[in-house]
């Protein structure tokens, strides 16, 4: 009886996917940097996930949902006019810049002061897209490198270099802000 099957499927989906709603919403907020766009994207993500739940074979629900959310967000990027970011604009140029450059300027390791979440979220929002995504997947959504590679559809090596670059940029922006505050 297909109706029963559908109900069971819906129930299984509810149990498997809904616990990750906050995680998916968090990623959407960082990817789109807009609360209402994020809500729309998350809703679309769950609709698509339910539709494709039959073909879901694992390995883990969270990276699978993230991969779907990414596709939704990419469509949103395409629709949206390009918004320049404060720290780095073109990913291509960013890959060429040596990433330890920022630290050579100030060799001593300045101690970062604890900041409120809002200030740090702003710094993360200012990272250019592929770096921001990798950073958020690792540091906030706690995915392993392999899971990030899977969700983002890139090799693990790319995940590693993007993450190194993202953290170097974030730290540079953070210390620069603290210098200014002094």
């Amino acid at each position, binding site marked *: 009886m297909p109706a029963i099957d559908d109900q069971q499927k819906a129930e299984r989906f509810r149990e498997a996917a809904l616990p990750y709603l906050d995680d998916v919403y968090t990623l959407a907020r960082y990817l789109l940097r807009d609360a209402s766009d994020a809500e729309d994207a998350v809703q679309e993500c769950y609709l698509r996930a339910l539709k494709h739940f039959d073909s879901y074979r694992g390995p883990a629900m969270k990276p699978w949902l993230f991969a779907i959310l990414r596709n939704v967000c990419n469509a949103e990027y395409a629709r949206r006019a390009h918004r320049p970011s404060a720290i780095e604009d073109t990913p291509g140029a960013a890959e060429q810049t040596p990433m330890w450059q920022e630290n050579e300027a100030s060799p001593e*390791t300045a101690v970062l002061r604890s900041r409120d979440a809002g200030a740090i979220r702003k710094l993360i929002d200012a990272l250019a897209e592929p770096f921001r995504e990798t950073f958020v997947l690792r540091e906030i959504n706690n995915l392993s490198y392999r899971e990030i590679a899977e969700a983002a559809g890139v090799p693990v090596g790319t995940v590693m270099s993007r993450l190194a670059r993202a953290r170097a940029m974030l730290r540079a922006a953070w210390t620069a802000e603290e210098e200014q505050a002094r």
Partner: protein
Amino acid sequence: MTCDEAKILLHALLDNELDAGHAREVEAHVAGCPACAAELAAQREMKAVLADTKLHYTAPPSLRARIEASIPQARPQPSRRSVLRGFAMGSAVSALAASGVVAVVLRQDDQQRILSEVVSAHLRSLQAGHLIDVVSSDQHTVKPWFNGKLDVAPPVIDLTALGFTLVGGRLDYIDARAIGAVVYKRRQHVINLFVSQTTSTERRPPRTQTMQGFNCRRWGERGLNFWAVSDIGGDELAEFVDKFEAAMKANVEG
């Protein structure tokens, strides 16, 4: 290792993503390179500050409600009265669920730590001379060896005929407790089966996780926790666990 490589790999070191060999290489480079040492310290510090900050967002309740509504309901539409009652129930249930989520998250953190200890123990065992304390392919030799060394001797089952050769047993330490490790081989690959006592008698179905390139399948049965760790493929490890469980069931019932 060059500084360029170290500047990327030190992040993998911080994230616990490196195998033992690469971790040693990065540590050796950092020990002799002040610039990379400073970078590692700075990144470690930033990671600690970030970990202390709430960077997660919480989905708005209206979004949750909309998504809930878009998933087909199992029951027919309830009357208005029962909707209200359901609402009151619903908030009690979701409060429970929320606390359940916290418990699950905490337990997962704990399990993540134990998993990493299990993988470390597996790695240690692969170093020369650490694999086996009692060398025997005879389960009637290995099993009594554990008696008196542990509160509960692990089940020792010979699976040689099924393609997994019993090679011996060892005492190991996980989560600050002595536990038994039963060692099997599949071709040239070592499988460590760690067994510890637990207060929970609830059966937990097997689940595979991957850490540092090792597959770890863990499950719980009859008051024991099991972790099977190996570098063999996930499906082969699952086969091992299936055969072990079937043999254990047959032993208990037979």
